[in-house]
């Protein structure tokens, strides 16, 4: 694919920014300072303007410096306001964000009036006109990026401690306040680096969205940092390429939409935390509960009458738990499919295999009842309901251990016999 010079610059810039944003964004995410980046981005504007007014040039370095200083001042003001007044953190962020930005806008319009005031050069810091990235900009980005990464690597474990338990860190004698300032400074650098590419409003997504996506896939901070950088970089690359190939698609927003899509996919599909898997697990659990309950009901009804041959009518079974016909059919279908129960016309009964299976379920239920009754001293008229609620989570091994701990009881608190364990059955 042939890339124009501009497109190539945008690609490099967006990828670099994505990687950096993801890295620092992970810390912001974990420290619950996601929106601090938003404030810092807005606060940088007056810094850029003042730097321009002082130096009179549009070269990146002094403008970066201006943005950096302003961002740092902004973050210090937020900290100070929260510490020394009753203003809460969210309001403090909102105040710094909007007031600094307002000052910046005033300065911008002031610059506009100047004879040489080609402030369209400064405008790009607002909206992110990635197409205006030049080689010099990229060089500055790369150098700053390398410095930021070096610091993160050097102070990795201290930053981890700062994010997790700063009080403990202080007690170890580590300078937690200074580390916090350092981390904030690195955040400001990344924000300033990103202003030109994605603009003020979207910076926060460059920081947080890849980090949030990465968090879904891993439980290790190191892996999260790498993954977040990777997702950020990939989103930057894909976004800038898409924006270059299709017409009238501004780069910043496309990058954000790409990383947001990655986030949504991550939320749904990530192995442990994925929402879809959680739903699947829930459904499986519900199914198992239904299955065990029906087995138990059939068993108990048969045991009571000491009759396994007579099948039970549908309405009768529905009455046991107050189920509708549909609900009962739903529970019965998998049993029938597995050969544990057989349906004869309008009735249902256990097969011999089903009876063995049901026996184990009842065994679990009754041992659990004994436990509740003896160890937790729940009265026997209460145990049945509580047992129902919890027994399905017990594994066979757990049941065996429980049985042993209880001294191999013969019957449950109501006097019903406890069926033996499956393997023993086979032996006898």
């Amino acid at each position, binding site marked *: 694919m042939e890339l124009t010079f501009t497109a190539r610059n945008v690609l490099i810039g967006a990828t670099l920014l994505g990687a950096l944003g993801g890295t620092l964004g992970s810390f912001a*995410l974990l420290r*619950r*300072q*996601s*929106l601090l*980046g*938003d404030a810092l981005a*807005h606060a940088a504007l007056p810094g850029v303007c003042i730097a321009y007014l002082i130096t009179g040039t549009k070269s990146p370095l002094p403008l970066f410096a201006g943005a950096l200083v302003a961002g740092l001042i902004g973050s210090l003001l937020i900290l100070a*306001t929260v510490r*020394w*007044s*009753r*203003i*809460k953190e*969210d*309001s403090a*962020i*909102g*105040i710094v*964000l*909007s*007031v600094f*930005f*307002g*000052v*910046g*806008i*005033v300065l*911008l*319009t*002031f610059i506009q*009036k100047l004879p040489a005031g080609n402030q369209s050069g400064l405008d790009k810091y*607002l*909206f992110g006109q990635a197409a205006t990235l030049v080689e010099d900009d990229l060089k500055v980005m790369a150098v700053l990026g390398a410095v930021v990464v070096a610091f993160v690597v050097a102070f990795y474990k201290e930053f981890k401690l700062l994010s997790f338990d700063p009080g403990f860190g202080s007690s170890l004698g580590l300078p937690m306040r200074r580390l916090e300032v350092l981390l904030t400074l690195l955040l400001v650098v990344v924000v300033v680096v990103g202003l030109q590419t994605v603009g*003020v*409003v*979207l910076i*926060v*997504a460059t*920081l*947080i*969205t890849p980090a*949030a996506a990465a*968090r*879904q896939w891993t439980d290790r901070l190191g892996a999260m940092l790498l993954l977040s950088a990777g997702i950020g970089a990939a989103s930057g690359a894909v976004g800038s390429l898409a924006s270059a190939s299709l017409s*009238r*698609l*501004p780069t*910043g*927003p*496309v990058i*954000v*939409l790409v990383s*947001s899509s990655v*986030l949504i996919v991550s*939320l749904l599909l990530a192995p442990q*935390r994925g*929402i879809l898997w959680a739903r699947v697990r829930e459904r499986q659990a519900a199914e198992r509960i239904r299955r065990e309950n029906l087995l138990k009901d059939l068993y108990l009804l048969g045991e009571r009458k000491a009759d396994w041959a007579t099948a039970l009518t549908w309405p009768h079974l529905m009455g046991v738990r107050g189920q509708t016909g549909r609900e009962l059919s739903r529970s019965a279908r998998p049993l029938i499919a597995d050969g544990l129960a057989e349906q004869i016309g309008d009735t249902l009964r256990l097969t011999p295999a089903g009876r063995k299976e049901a026996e184990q379920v009842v065994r679990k239920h009754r041992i659990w009842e004994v436990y509740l009754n003896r160890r937790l001293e729940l009265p026997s008229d209460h145990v049945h309901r509580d047992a129902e609620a919890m027994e399905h989570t017990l594994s066979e091994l757990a049941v065996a251990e429980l049985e042993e701990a209880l001294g191999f009881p013969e019957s449950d608190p109501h006097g019903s016999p406890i069926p033996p364990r499956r393997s023993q059955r086979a032996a006898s």
Partner: protein
Amino acid sequence: MSPTLVILLVGSCVAASCALIGSFLVLRKMALLGDAISHAVLPGIVIAFLITGDRAALPMVLGAGALGVITVMLVELFNRSRRLKEDASIGVVFPALFSLGVILISRYAAQVDLDLDCVLYGEIAYAPWDTLTLGGTDLGPKALWVNGSVLLLVLLFVLIFFKELKISTFDAGLAASLGFSPVLIHYLLMSMVSVTVVGAFESVGAILVVAMLVVPPATAYLLTDRLGTMLGLAVGVGVASALGGYGLARAWDASIAGAMAMVAGLLFLAALLFSPSHGLLARLLQLWRMGRRLSGQLLLLHLRKEGEVVPVSTLERRFGWTAPRLRRVLSGLLRSGWVEREGEGLRLTPRGAEVLETTGRAQLAHKL
């Protein structure tokens, strides 16, 4: 109406509406949700524009209102899933929605007048000339109609739901137990935020709406402890910011919206430093006075504990005070006759012991 008057009126209406709604945002620690909504309504406005084909106010307000609710719902969705915390939920939702809006504009509305600059920081200076025509008659500046109506709506909302808003802000549990749903109030409030925001767009733009939503209420929060007073003060500060901002902008020939935010910030700073109840200076004074009172008391206590004459040299080390501070405290105590010198040391006088008793008892009663 002179153009200046129109601008001042529009600015004041916007400021007042934002101040009223924003007060509740600040109290509920949802200032940033307001910020998020002000950005996220963009796609709603664009879609309304694309559907109706013109920049009529009503569809845009509806579109914005819808997006406001959607934003809040999405944030809640992410937060409720427990895989993202609240601040992160906000931080991923509004940029995505804003990006959607920008892309829609760029692709489908770029040639039309719905440009980004205007949305981001508005242009109130055009307000007097952008008039509303209905059935051929010129009814006057559109911005005035729109923002005037919004202000009316906001006033009605706050008046009607004042009790519910107050209770659900300070004690959601109590609200629920009293029978009205705090969730409903929450969504109503957020809808009002969206409506206010879109009304203000044309005047001050998205980003500066946040200034009007957060800064005057925060200023009022530093000046009073009563909700009603806070609302009134917020409106006052907001209108002052609008008027002052306009004056400043005229003097410097600069952006009006930016100047308004600046003035709001200055007023906030003034309150932060000088508020008699919660300002920094007042607090420092309080601390200093308390420090002095406490220091004297602690020294007396120490003397009583030791029982006899205490050499001055040990006091510095024991209390961790600097020498000048120790001297200052001592001179005060000596002057009041609660402490007397004896050789190289100090001793508690009977009067000092008495003072200690009475204050000690008062403290004990107060604390336990």
